[in-house]
């Protein structure tokens, strides 16, 4: 049986999670500017609300803990005590403890009794016992918040509904009855299936179920009876109100405390935006349905052309209109998943603070473009790489205060994190005003770790790229943070796995800048369908520069083997997709086929295909079984004709030589 409070519990946990984030924001603000009364007030209210809800649901440890924190904050607010550095640490740790306790309560885990005791000691050197003694539920309930609320009396009814088997034959549907009951209040339904016979004996026109319903409502019992009016003679119905006991007024009002306090803090924070909390699973489902719709429309349109209807015909106009509307719908749904990077950036100040403190450096983080929107699935995958990059920057980029001052820089280092959109991509840049990269040291370490041979003469750019190799690190001691050499190569792999790129630039003595270029969304992309032999592939339009049919004279060979092409004075490598993917019966002469120029970093590469078949927005799908690695492709999609098409991965294709890498051998060796 569902307890009426359980639905409030889920809301409480979601709101509490937000309050915990708010707490961290306020604490970090107060660390910079301790006089910020608004931040202090918001912090106090957040803790207070968490405590209120905890009390309603009986999370005793959490109540005790938050109460102590709240008392301290109150003393700070009233000027009784002054904040110190150790305190700030203590409060931040207290926030972490609260987050842990909430998570445990939500998952119904238990925590060790001494949880948080150490932190409490930090906050309450002496008078702990006194504070706890002063605290009592009665005092709390006298809080003004409750008195402000006036509530209608809610009664809970137990309804036992036993319909006669012939109920369905009279055209009555129990589900409609339950829907009507739901309109009256909170309903929980339990079905009794004990009377359902074996399928061989089952008569599908008869009803073998009976139900026990629990309804919490402010409506009168007569309203409930009214719902069952038409089936009164076709069932046995008992409605029993539950006797309200002394505990229930408190039980009923308390969740509203959480709600009301929650509403209070929300109102002070963002008075103007109206938002809706939606499960991402629902949005994913919506996305799938919309893409199926688009595909059906596409097939319909294709059939139309096959049936050779001409333009201007009513049917064809309508189908085109349907296509436009479906594409607009898809864009709208996609935009639901777009979230401002603010949520991602919000965790970073804490990372900077903790890392800087651990290393004894002074670093401040400046964030720009927090309102830039990015697909939530892309954002999820960025959290870890970004944290790592920031820890790296504080550890290796920013020098110690003394070193900085000696170099004529301010003692405090500055990290700048910014987000912008540019031609279908999101650019995230992390720059610091540190020392840049020490090329000599990097080369030294790389040689020492056997990552590069000493004789090789590397250009400056090539030396810079060494830090992206697995196993590389210039740290002499492995710290908890970075230095274990599992650094930037993992970051780059993670970014590349979502279709992004990482670029590094730096000026020795002046600073380093890492730029991440990411797709706006993982879900769909603008593609150009290309034909190679009998196969169709999808090329992301974002990578395309231009397409052309070259003259025979534009073709060149470099050093005997590398095919090159001259395009408007520029010479670039020519890659044949047919050769790369071993596709038979494809066009081999560029002058007979078509060349698509793509961009790969700073390089342009010419790709030889048979023909371009048309632009299409495609929904990216993953293969239903994991482990199949698609070299040369970033994903799959289903085209309008129902066939699966592979989406080309420009990075792989441009990085390869003229022939595909030895993947075949890997398969043969393993199976």
């Amino acid at each position, binding site marked *: 049986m569902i307890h009426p409070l359980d639905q409030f519990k889920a809301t409480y946990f979601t709101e509490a999670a937000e309050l915990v984030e708010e707490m961290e924001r306020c604490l970090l603000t107060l660390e910079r500017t301790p006089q910020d009364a608004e931040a202090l007030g918001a912090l106090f209210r957040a803790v207070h609300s968490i405590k209120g809800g905890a009390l309603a649901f009986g999370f005793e440890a959490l109540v005790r803990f938050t109460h102590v924190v709240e008392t301290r904050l109150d003393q700070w607010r009233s000027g009784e005590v002054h904040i110190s550095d150790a305190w700030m640490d203590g409060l931040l740790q207290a926030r972490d403890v609260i987050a842990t306790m909430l998570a445990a309560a939500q998952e119904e885990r238990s925590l060790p009794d001494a949880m948080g005791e150490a932190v409490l000691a930090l906050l309450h050197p002496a008078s702990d016992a006194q504070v706890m003694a002063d605290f009592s539920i009665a005092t709390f309930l006298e809080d003004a918040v409750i008195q402000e609320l006036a509530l209608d009396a809610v009664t809970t009814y137990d309804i036992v509904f036993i319909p006669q088997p012939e109920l369905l034959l009279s055209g009555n549907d129990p589900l409609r009855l339950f829907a009507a009951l739901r309109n009256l209040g909170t309903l929980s339904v339990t079905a009794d299936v004990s009377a359902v016979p074996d399928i061989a004996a089952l008569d599908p026109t008869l009803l073998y179920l009976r139900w026990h319903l629990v309804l919490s409502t402010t409506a009168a019992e007569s309203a409930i009876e009214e719902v069952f009016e038409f089936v009164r003679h076709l069932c046995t119905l008992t409605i029993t109100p539950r006797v309200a006991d002394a505990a229930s007024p408190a039980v009923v009002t308390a969740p509203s405390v959480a709600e009301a306090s929650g509403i209070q803090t929300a109102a002070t924070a963002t008075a103007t935006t109206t938002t809706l909390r939606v499960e991402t699973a629902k949005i994913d489902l919506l996305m799938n349905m919309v893409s199926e719709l688009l595909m059906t429309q596409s097939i319909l349109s294709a059939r139309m052309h096959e049936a050779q209807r001409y333009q201007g015909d009513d049917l064809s106009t309508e189908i085109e209109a349907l296509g436009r509307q479906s594409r607009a719908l898809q864009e709208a749904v996609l935009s639901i998943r777009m979230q401002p990077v603010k949520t991602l950036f919000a965790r970073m100040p804490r990372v900077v603070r903790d890392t800087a403190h651990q290393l004894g450096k002074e670093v401040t983080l400046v964030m720009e473009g927090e309102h830039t929107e990015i697909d939530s699935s892309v954002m999820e995958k960025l959290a870890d790489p970004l944290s790592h990059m920031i820890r790296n920057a504080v550890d290796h980029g920013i020098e110690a205060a003394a070193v900085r001052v000696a170099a004529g820089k301010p003692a405090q280092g500055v990290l700048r994190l910014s987000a912008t959109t540019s031609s279908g991509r999101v650019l995230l840049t992390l720059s610091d005003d540190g020392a840049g990269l020490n090329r000599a040291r990097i080369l030294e370490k790389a040689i020492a770790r056997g990552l590069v041979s000493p004789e090789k003469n590397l250009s400056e750019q090539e030396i810079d790229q060494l830090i992206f190799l697995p196993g590389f690190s210039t740290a002499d001691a492995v710290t908890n943070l970075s230095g274990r050499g599992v650094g930037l190569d993992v970051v780059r792999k993670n970014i590349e796995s979502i279709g992004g790129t990482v670029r590094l630039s730096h000026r020795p003595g002046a600073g380093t800048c890492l730029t991440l270029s990411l797709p706006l969304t993982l879900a769909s992309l603008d593609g150009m369908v290309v034909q190679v032999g009998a196969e169709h592939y999808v090329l992301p339009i974002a990578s395309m520069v231009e397409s052309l049919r070259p003259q025979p004279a534009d073709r060149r060979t470099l050093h005997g083997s590398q095919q090159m092409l001259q395009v408007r004075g520029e010479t670039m490598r020519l890659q044949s997709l047919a050769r790369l*993917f071993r596709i038979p019966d494809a066009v081999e002469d560029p002058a007979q086929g078509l060349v698509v120029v793509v961009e790969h970093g700073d390089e342009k590469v010419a790709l030889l295909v048979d023909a371009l078949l048309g632009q299409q927005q495609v929904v990216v799908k993953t293969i*239903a*079984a994991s482990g199949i*690695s*698609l*070299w040369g492709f970033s994903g799959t999609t289903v085209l309008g004709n129902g*066939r*699966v098409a*592979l989406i080309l991965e420009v990075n792989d294709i441009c990085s390869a030589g003229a022939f595909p890498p030895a993947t075949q051998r890997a398969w043969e060796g*393993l199976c």
Partner: protein
Amino acid sequence: MLTTETTPVATEANSCAEQYLTFTVQGEEYGIAIDQVREIKVLSETTRLPNTPDYLRGVMNLRGQVLPVFDLRARFHGVPTQVTPTHVVVVLSQGTEMIGLLVDAVLDILETVAGEITPVPVRDLSDAGHFLSGLVTRDARMVALLSAAPLFELTRAGFIHPAPTTH
């Protein structure tokens, strides 16, 4: 002395009745536990994945999902299937993953009785022992029972991301 090594393959099916979907590949009968089978679909067009072995025939559109299809004749007998409109794909599912097996024809559902499944006689280092979990001999039929897990592992036989060749 020549002895036939029989590897007693542990199957829970040995002790109670189980149902197997049977099908033919190159004239031989195979069976797979019915609870692994999601559906049987007529083979529609597959899109080849470049640089993959012959037995990974390609991927197929299964109501919007991209299903990898393995050619069992190619894998077990080394000869790729010449498809006809009657060839079918047996779709297996395990959790959130799905694979398709291209077979010649589906036969029936075989219900085994206790003790009917015998171990697979393994004579040499062929991979019969790897894929097969048991044998059922009934009347004139001999049905080789397949384990699902090694079939799913065909996907994980693993591409290693090749290091790009530099010029």
